[in-house]
Structures are given as C-alpha cells and as structure tokens.
C-alpha cells in the first residue's frame, strides 16, 4: 500500500505511534534499569559497594512497573497488527528467546539478591547473574531492532532464500544489526549513569556517576556514528528516510543539541538538565528510527495500513488505551513521586 501523502492520520497510524511511545517509555525507564546492571558490573574503586547499593535502591521499587511497558507494546502490537507480530516472532525467534532468558534471569536474580541471603557470596553470585543478564538482553533486543530496520525480516527482505541460517540467524547478526545492539546497550548505560547522579545526595557517588556518564555519553556518539555508517550498506530504506525526509534536518539538529546538552549538563553538574537532555536524546533517536521506516512496520513489505487489524478492533484498542491511560498515568506519577521525589529535593 502507498503511504497517503498529506492525508489524514489514520487510526492505525495513531496506534502504531502509541506502540512506539510505549517502546520509548520502555527504553527510558527499563532501559535505565538495564544500564544500572552495567554499572553494577563496572562498580570499581573504594565506593564499589556503595555504587552497587545505589543501583539496587534506585531500581528496586520501579523495575517491575518499568518492565510492563514492553508487555504493553507487545500486546498492542499483536492486537492491532497481528501479522507483524507473527512475522517478527518467526524470524527473530532466536534473539527473542535468548533475550527472554536474559529477562527471566535478571528479574529473578534481582529479587533473589534483594530478598534472599544477606551473606556476601550469595549477594555476589546473584549480582553477577543480574549484571550479565543486564548486558546481554539490551544487546539482543537492539540487534532485533537492527534486523527490522535493515529490512532483513520482511518477506521480501534480505532474509529471502533457503536454509535455517539464512532465515533465522543471518538477519540479526549482520554488522549493522550488531552495531545497533551495541548502540542500545551504550545508550542504556548512559541513561542509567545520568539518572543515578540524581538518586543520591552523596557528592562522591555523584562524581563517580558523572564520570561514567561522560564516558558513556561520548560512547553513545561514537557507536551512533558507527551504526549510521553501517546503515549505508545495511539499512538503506531507513537511512533514506533518516537523511532524505523534510523533517530529517531538524531532527538531526535537535538530537545533536540534546547530546551536547546532556554532556554539558553533566560537565557543569546540572544533573536535572543532564537528565532531561539525555532522555530527549535517546527518545529522538528512537523516533528517528520509527519515522525513518514509515510507513513500514517491517520494511520492505509490512506497512501500517496493510497489516492493521479490522477497524473495530483498532477502535476498541484505542478506547482501552484511553481508559487504561487515565488509570495508568496518575498511578505512575504517584509511584515516582513516592520513590523518586526524595533524594533530588534534599
């Protein structure tokens, strides 16, 4: 189907937008929880223990809620765009299954560590599992996104051909897909470091995470450029969208400004500024990807309109989103108000 130029926005498009928004929330919130795991692994120096404890304390009350954004995106996807869900599930079975093992181990390890034994070696063992899974999972989810962006999981994509490896492995292990995976991981670590400066009032700990945030922020830029360069050979459609569309220049300027702003904020110890800019930077990148592949959900052949469920289903889903949102947002506000309002206000 052709994208409608200048036409009205359809219900299917709005719902696709809601799914991207849910993914955006997942990246900003759960992504930072994953990033916390990265810093758990890299906890170093005299304050290593304090760093780990800060991570645990920061994500304890919220990680389950943050995690539900992924589930929401998933159920909306299979309600509103069933063929897309089926196609992704078939072609990306392996990275999804591996990511699931990571999700299971990470969540359970976190709970076991928090509620299990207080002995040091027990803590350490689960801490290791938690950190390891926090690294592997974003990597795999990023690779899956890379495979989609590259057009390698569509029916007419590069995944065409025969054989197990061609169909189920090659799409997500291309250099481009791997670069997206690394990029996602680095972004998550960056977000976590920036957020963690606001989770404590301890100057020394803030400095620790400031340094980590600066390093990660530069790494985001470097890996981002590498991914963009690889997209030349790997994800032409998205690249064309990203570079050629009328909105692409303002988007790039904004993203760049946010990236610089986050680093400057960290440098000048304006933690709140840094947090806003970092979140803005990562969100813009995600929306850049989504807009870049519009009107496709899976390039080159699953469009938004072409794979949408019947209108009645879409309408009801929209109704559920409005009603659910009316309950959800005040509740979320309350959760973050109770647990995240404190440290930064002191």
């Amino acid at each position, binding site marked *: 189907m052709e994208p409608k130029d200048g036409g009205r926005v359809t219900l299917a498009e709005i719902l696709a937008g809601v799914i991207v928004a849910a993914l955006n929330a997942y990246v900003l919130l759960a992504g930072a929880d994953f990033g916390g795991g990265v810093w758990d692994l890299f906890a170093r120096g005299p304050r290593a223990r304090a760093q780990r404890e800060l991570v645990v304390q920061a994500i*304890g*009350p*919220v990680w*389950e*809620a943050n*995690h*539900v954004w*992924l*589930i*929401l995106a*998933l*159920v*909306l996807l*299979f*309600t*509103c*765009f*069933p*063929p897309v*869900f*089926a*196609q992704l*599930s*078939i072609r990306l*079975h392996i990275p*999804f*299954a591996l990511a*699931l*093992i990571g*999700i*299971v*181990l*990470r*969540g*359970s390890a*976190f*709970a*076991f560590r928090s*509620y*299990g*034994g207080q002995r040091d070696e027990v803590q350490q063992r689960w801490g290791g599992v938690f950190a390891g899974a926090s690294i592997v999972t974003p990597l795999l989810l990023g690779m899956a996104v890379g495979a989609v962006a590259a057009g390698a999981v569509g029916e007419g994509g590069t995944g065409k051909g025969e054989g*197990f490896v061609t*169909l189920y492995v090659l799409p997500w292990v291309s250099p481009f897909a791997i670069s997206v995976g690394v990029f996602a991981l680095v972004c998550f670590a960056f977000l976590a470091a920036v957020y963690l400066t606001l989770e404590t009032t301890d100057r020394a700990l803030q400095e620790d995470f400031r340094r980590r945030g600066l390093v990660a922020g530069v790494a985001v830029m470097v890996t981002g450029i590498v991914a963009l360069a690889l997209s030349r050979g790997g994800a032409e459609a998205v690249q064309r969208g990203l570079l050629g569309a009328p909105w692409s220049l303002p988007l790039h300027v904004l993203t760049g400004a946010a990236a610089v702003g986050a680093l400057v904020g960290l440098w000048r110890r304006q933690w709140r500024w840094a947090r806003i800019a970092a979140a803005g930077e990562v969100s813009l990148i995600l929306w850049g990807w989504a807009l870049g592949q519009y009107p496709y959900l899976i390039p080159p052949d699953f469009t938004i309109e072409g794979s949408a*469920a*019947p209108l*009645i*289903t879409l309408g*009801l*889903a929209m109704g*559920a989103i409005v*009603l*659910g949102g009316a*309950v*959800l947002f005040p*509740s*979320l506000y*309350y*959760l973050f108000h*109770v*647990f995240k309002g404190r440290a930064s206000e002191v």
Partner: protein
Amino acid sequence: MFPPMPDLLAARSQMGVSLGFHILFAIVGMGMPVLMVLAERRWLATGDEIYHELAQRWGKGTAILFAVGAVSGTVLSFELGLLWPGFMRLAGAVIGMPFSLEGFAFFTEAIFLGIYLYGWGRISRRAHLFAGVLVAVSGALSGIFVVIANAWMNTPTGFEVVGGVITHVDPIAAMANPAAFAQTLHMLLAAYAATGLAVAGIHAYMLLRDSTNAFHRRALSIALLVGGPAAVLQPISGDLAARQVARYQPAKLAAMEAVFETERGAPLVLGGWPDLDARTTRYAIRIPYGLSLLAYHDPHAEIRGLDAIPRDQWPNVPAVHWSFQFMVALGTYMAVVVLWAGWVLRSRGRREGGRVLAENRRLMWALVVATPMGFLATEAGWMTTELGRQPWVIYGILRTRDAVTPMPGLIVPFVAFTLLYCFLGVIVAWLLYRQIVRSPTVPEQLWRVVRTGEWSRKTGDA
C-alpha cells in the same frame, strides 16, 4: 537426521511447561495480596503488632514470587508468537482485547506492588493499605482477562470464517463467549482456595510444633478466611464449568468422563483405565445416571460419547480423564477439610477460635496434608482444559499443528526453558523454605521487644 522430538510436540511441551510454571506464581499473585491486606487491616483496626509483622513477612515472600511471576508471564506473552504465530495471526485481532486490558491491569498491579512492598513508612497507613487493595484487585483482573482469552479458545465466538479468513470481527462478543463466566469464576476461586489453604497448611504445621504460638494462630485464621469459602464454593463453580463443557465442548466432556458410547442416563465413571481400542473404561466405578444428572441436571439427558467424534479429533483420553478426576478428588478433600474446620469453629470468638483450631491436632494434620492440593488441582484442571481441547488450538476452527511456527529445531528452546524453570523452581523453593523456617517463635510477652529491635536494624540499613 531424525529429530529426537517432533517440532509440534516440542512446542506443545514448551507451552505446557511455561504455563504450568507461570500459573503457580500467578495464583500467589492473586491470592497473597488479599491475605496481606486482611492482616494489615486487622493491624490498623486492633493495633496488634503481630498482624503488622505478619503482613510484612508475607510481603517478603511474595516479593520473590511476584518477580518470578512477572518474568515468566513475559516469556508467555512472547511465546504466543514464538511458538504459535499461526494462532496469533488469526486470533490477535479477535482476542487481543482482553490481552490489552490485561496489560493495563499488570501495570496497575506492578505499580502498586512497588508502592506496597517498598512504601512501608513512606506513605500514610491508609494509603499503604489502599495500595494493597489495588494490588489485589488488579491481580484478580489480570487473571480474569487472560482466562477470558483462554475461554475464547475453548468456545470461540465473535467472528465468522469465510474461505479460511476471519471476518466480521466483534471483540466484545468474543469476550462474552459462553465459557468465559464459568472459567473465570472457577479460576479466581481456585487462586484463593489454593493460596489460602497452602498458607493455612504451613502455619498449621508450625502450630503442630507449638500450638500456643500467637503469630501462627493469627496467620492460620486469616488464611482460612480467604481459602475456606473459596474451597467450599469451588465444587459448585466446577459444576457450572462442567455444564458449560457438556454443552459446547462435547469432545472434552467425553474425554473427561471417559464416555465412549453416546447414551441417555449416562453413569458417572470414577477412576478406571480408558482402553481406546476396546472403547471402554476398565476397572472403573460407575454411578448410575450420575453423569447425565451432573452435566444437565436431568437423569435421562443424552451425553455424547467419543463415538460421536471423529477418531482424529479425540484428545488424549486417559490424560484428560485422570487429570479431571484428580482435580475433583483434591477439590472434594479441600472442601471437606474446610467444612470440618468450620464445624470445629462453630460460633466461637476470634481468640477462642484460634485456640480451638490450633489445639485440634487431627484437623491441623488434615490441613497440612492439604497444603499443596490447591496448586495440584489447578495444574490438573488446566491439563483437563488444554489437553481436552486438542487437536484444536481454537476449538473447531484452527488445529494446533497449523498454528505452530515453521522454525525447526524447537526441541532446543524447549529443553533450555525447561532447565531454566527447574533451576528457578529449586531456588524459589529454597528461599521460601528459609523464610518459613525463620518465622518467629517467641512467646507473646517478649514479642514487642523483639520486633522493635528488628525494626531499628531494618531502618538502620536503609
């Protein structure tokens, strides 16, 4: 190369293992918040610190189970597509609705669970209790929505099939399918009965060692308050479910009851060995007219037997029959034990009742025996429902074999996830065991001192 396990079988096994694992935690996720809220409410009403301690300790154990429930549920959401893309492609638009609503219920649950578990002392007592109530309500709603989706698989409505394509989709009609009410009611009661009696059994065991322990007496009374009524109502709601099955899923009913011949005034078949080739059930006890009576409340009603079903559409008759009988047997025992406890309690006050119960050693043993039964009955019930639907994933519409993913080598994820779940199961069991063993054993007079000491240590950590 001959695969060691056909892909379809591997996918079915993986789905069964994943669901069978998740349901254990889902039950706790629905039941425990109710117990915790009741304990906390009694604390607020009476000022008795033991109830406070109880709510907090239950909360600690539940936190672990919740985390495992959430991650195993996530696996399931993906597995619907990873294993059954053909099913989701066809059904997503029809039954996505309850899943989407479930998504929001999960959200509410996870948010208020975080507030409940980590919010002690951070928010007002009333707000804390209310957070607990919301966890309980949204937990029940999650269960209800997902079972509605399953009920649709059993009795699909709300669409038409024209030339192999689903059209005229009506998601509301799909949610209002004939099995929805009976199944959700039965599942909800199962969760409360299973959790309540499991907790009651554990504390009954502790009371057998020390019947004066005030902590365990109070715990027992709350657990019975939740589990008791549910366990008594369960056979009644099961009857409702059975009549629904008789009307809309004749193949499942025939397999459940091991009925080979269509007949009027059919007997109820208890136990026995369904012999598929001889088309009869050997060594069974038969209660004349029993089945017709139960299924249609009419001793002469006609029951369709397996002879009315093409052979290639039979489910696995012995597995379904035994699962069903196992559930009913366990359910009968649970209801009887609860009625016994009710008899022992006849018109006693709360304090007095706690003592009378705790000192009745035979009743305590009977409760200990019932500890795992609700969970076992639930697993058996789900085996009945799911195996009884085979070979269909959507009854009469889509066969399981046409829904499975084309990706070969499914034995690998099956083995991987099974090992993962075994590993988690062992650890969870061990952590819970430690949690229970460490329960307080001090006499009532010393109680306050101990508790205050522990409280200051806890807050010192934070």
